[in-house]
């Protein structure tokens, strides 16, 4: 239950920031999933 707009915004932003962290980690995993079969260009 939110008594003020401040409470609501704080709640929404808190959840969104946590989700953003989760999504960022998922993006790294997704990028690896997408590209791990690509032929690597050897630079040595």
């Amino acid at each position, binding site marked *: 239950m939110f008594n003020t707009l401040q409470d609501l915004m704080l709640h*929404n*932003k808190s959840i*969104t920031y946590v*989700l953003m962290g989760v999504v960022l980690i998922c993006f790294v995993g*997704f990028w690896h999933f*997408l590209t791990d079969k690509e032929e690597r260009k050897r630079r040595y």
Partner: protein
Amino acid sequence: MSTENAKSGSLFTPWNIVAGLILAAGIVVTIMRFTMGLGSVTNLTDNNPWGIWIGFDLLCGVALAAGGYTTSAACYIFGFKRFHGAVRPAILTAFLGYAMVVFALNYDVGRPWRLVYPIFYQQGTTSILFEVGLCVFIYLTVLFLEYLPAALEWKRGFDKYRGILVKMTMGLTILGVILSTLHQSSLGALYLIAPSKLHPLWYTAYLPVMFFMSSMFAGLSMVIFEGTISHKHFHHKMDAEYNGGYEDLQLAFAKAAAWIMAGYLAMKIFGLSMDNRWQYLGTGYGVWWLVEVFGFVAMPCYCYAVAYRDRNLKLARIAAPWTVLGIVLNRFNISLVAFNWQLPSVDRYFPSFGEIVISLFVVTIGVLIFRFIVTRMPIFYVHPAYKDSSH
């Protein structure tokens, strides 16, 4: 409408008969619309002034024509020259897409001779619609100029003008990307004015960003989809350069689409979270939202990713029309299904037969002009006289 039939000279093929019937019905409805008004052929009301002529012809038309700026940006700005063969078909699709959008707009707005008024006579500079109109007007001109070298090569004798246009390619591409960024997002921004009418699951402050992001993977998917169909029907028109980079292009676009769709999916969830709309997910509209987001974004995104990983072209070609369908569904949801959602069902909008006929009429004209051009002009091949040209 197959080229085999065109080559054999027979006009009465099944596709041509269907196209002919649609054109005949479209002409009848056109006459009715312009002589008897909107009410004679549409179900539009004061509650629902925008129907499928906006929701499908305009919103979907603009989003699905985004292949032009994505492909030319990939080739000329990001330097993927191996995709050069795909630029002309993508530009042509985009040019015809936008031309059909403007053509269809005449049906909705009426009085075609006044279509230029907002640009040249009375500019409503505080309106987002004005920005959309201005961008579409300029971008259609840009696309025409980008397409023009192909027409000039076909007619021959205009090498001087062709040379000038070819030199303008980079400038036109940059202008095209800027204009697309502006009006693709503005189409989403149009709905920001209606928070009380659009369902909370679809209404978010990120609508402009979502429209722009979705236009990118819509354009990429349309290039894959259009390429697949063109390969089936116009294979004899394609040269080694086009065919050589074709599979590589489809997989590269699948990778790009998967990545952008993942970002779009994240934006959808952030929009839900920032506005605290979770409670609506348990309703009927919530189920429909989940169908759109997971059935037509997350799943084709996964298919694209697997297609790229495993170099599975077949899967990419399945994911492309799936994504296109998802874009159509999203635009329909925002402009029709979730719009005026709190009205009683008797006041809700459903397109009339006349509106559907005109939408089919517009698409058919676009397909026929595409077919006319690609069977005559150097779209899928480099003209022998211009083999050394970089355009």
